[in-house]
């Protein structure tokens, strides 16, 4: 029995059967399991199609007159809102303040890249392979390679690994810019009251193109050796995308925030500072210099992603290759391999000196990170989005806030 077609192939078999290979069509016709999968897709189709209104009468010529009138009334509107190359650029293409702060997703996505994914993608273009649905803690050892820039020892990293924040004047402005709104939360007593500051987390993406030769050179320079790369790994591309996101801060002005967030989430600043040379990677560090006051009393964030797309490499082979590299501790590799569903489970790095636990938030499992005087955080994922409540407040206070959001 040939391999079962992917969900995507079955889906297209329903929608555009002529575009599907005959061998897949034959298989889907004879295989009971694939017929069951197809049946489920048909049910999904029916539910959605019936539920959404499908017929509407319009008069385009009248609408065109209406548009012309609107342009005469507000002639500046069209030019002010004109699109860029893509719709999202038009909606999100706003002037930014280049303030790289809040690095947690840098570390998270780095580990995510190390993790690879579960699905072997056959297409030659970048295919989405990961969107976070749940989180699981992984303990980072001193010496583990973390940070996207540190991955430059495995190949060429392009794009940015930083998240930029743009100040917004109000919750409404933030919602408009981000495309979604953060729910209003009641701040626990004892924490700063009043309105928070509002920040748009800009969308960013970075690509890693694997270079086996570069990884070998880096290992040799460190006095180590690396196993031979499986076929298809050399030159393969992984793309990590995050954002847009929304951030609300209580009790902190932003310029002093960078060190604190890095501390809380495991020394990513040292990772990023390893530079593009990347010969030594970036060990997770406990040697931080930021003061506790650099942390906000309370921060609430929702960020789209991180999502990962691949150029079609066999990701199980890539995972095995990356996790066998010097600089990845056997403990970290074992934790990542133990993740049940790596296509949707996001590893949350637990830095040295911090502890982690789980908490149920209205049916969703969240990771609680406690770093003593360095702050606490509650992190969870849902529908491709990462949520975090963090700051100097106690873990129980942060959990109370998180339950208002989840």
């Amino acid at each position, binding site marked *: 029995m040939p391999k079962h077609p992917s*969900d995507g192939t079955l889906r297209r078999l329903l929608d555009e059967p002529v575009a599907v290979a005959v061998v897949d069509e034959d298989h889907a016709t004879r295989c009971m399991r694939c017929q069951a999968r197809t049946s489920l897709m048909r049910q999904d189709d*029916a539910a959605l199609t019936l539920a*959404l209104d499908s017929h509407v009468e319009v008069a*385009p010529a009248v609408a065109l007159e209406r548009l012309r009138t609107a342009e005469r009334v507000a002639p500046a509107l069209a030019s002010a809102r004109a699109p860029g190359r893509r719709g999202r650029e038009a909606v999100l293409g706003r002037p930014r303040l280049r303030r790289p702060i809040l690095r947690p997703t840098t570390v998270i996505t780095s580990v995510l890249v190390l993790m690879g994914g579960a699905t072997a993608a056959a297409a030659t273009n970048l295919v*989405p392979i990961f969107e976070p649905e749940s989180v699981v803690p992984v303990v980072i050892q001193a010496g583990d390679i973390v940070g996207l820039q540190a991955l430059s020892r495995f190949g060429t990293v392009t794009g940015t690994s930083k998240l930029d924040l743009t100040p917004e004047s109000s919750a409404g402005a933030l919602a408009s810019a981000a*495309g979604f*709104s953060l729910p209003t939360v009641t701040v626990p007593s004892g924490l700063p009251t009043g309105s928070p500051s509002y920040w748009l987390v800009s969308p960013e993406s970075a690509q890693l193109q694997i270079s086996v030769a570069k990884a070998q050179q880096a290992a040799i320079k460190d006095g180590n050796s690396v196993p031979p790369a499986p076929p298809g790994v050399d030159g393969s591309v992984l793309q990590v995308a995050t954002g847009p996101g929304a951030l609300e801060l209580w009790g902190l002005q932003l310029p002093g925030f960078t060190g604190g967030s890095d501390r809380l989430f495991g020394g990513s600043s040292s990772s990023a500072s390893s530079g593009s040379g990347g010969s030594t990677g970036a060990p997770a560090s406990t040697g931080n210099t930021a003061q506790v006051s650099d942390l906000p009393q309370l921060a609430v964030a929702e960020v*789209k992603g991180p999502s990962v797309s691949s150029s079609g490499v066999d990701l199980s082979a890539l995972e095995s290759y990356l996790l066998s590299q010097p600089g990845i501790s056997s403990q970290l590799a074992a934790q990542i391999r133990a993740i049940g569903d790596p296509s949707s489970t996001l590893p949350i790095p637990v830095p040295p000196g911090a502890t982690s636990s789980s908490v149920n938030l209205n049916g969703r499992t969240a990771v609680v990170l406690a770093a003593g005087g360095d702050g606490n955080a509650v992190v969870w994922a849902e*529908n*491709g989005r990462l949520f975090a409540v963090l700051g100097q407040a106690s873990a129980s206070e942060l959990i109370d806030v998180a339950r208002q959001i989840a």
Partner: protein
Amino acid sequence: MMAMVRTVRAPRAALVAQRARQDDERSFERFFLTHYERVVLIAYRVLGDRAAAEDVAQEVFLSFHGRGDPSSDWAAGWLWAASAHGALNIVRGSRRRRDRELRVASATYAPGPEDGAIAAEQRAVVRACLARLPQRQAEILVMRTSGLSYADIASAVGVQPSSVGTLIARAQKSLRKELSRAQTSL
């Protein structure tokens, strides 16, 4: 002589520019008349309100007009994605409000409507669940149910047509989860 040349050339240049503007406007009008109905339909799928859908469509075309090139290969895809994006943003306007509506509407939700009549409450449940999906997943589902081909959707979201099936399947799985969660949350 030179003065004569200048006085002759200046009106010609202005005339050429004026004709170019007229050509651009005619091109935009054809583009508008060709795509308006589908842009409205996509927004209407999400909103279920014709007036609101036409407002979204107007915003989409206003955004496009003057900067976008109607003859470009990405133009139509941009309209469709922008329409779905704009409509979903309206639905997402207040998550807490939607959640309340979802809880209320879920009380009467029953999948598989044998009689073919979908109650407004059931539609509200589906829309609320759709609005809770990741933006791109929701957009793709809306565009697919609006009759766009894989090539159209690929153009709109900037992927290869071969990836669209995977994206649709994943989006449907997410929606199924949301609908299930809406039922079990009661």
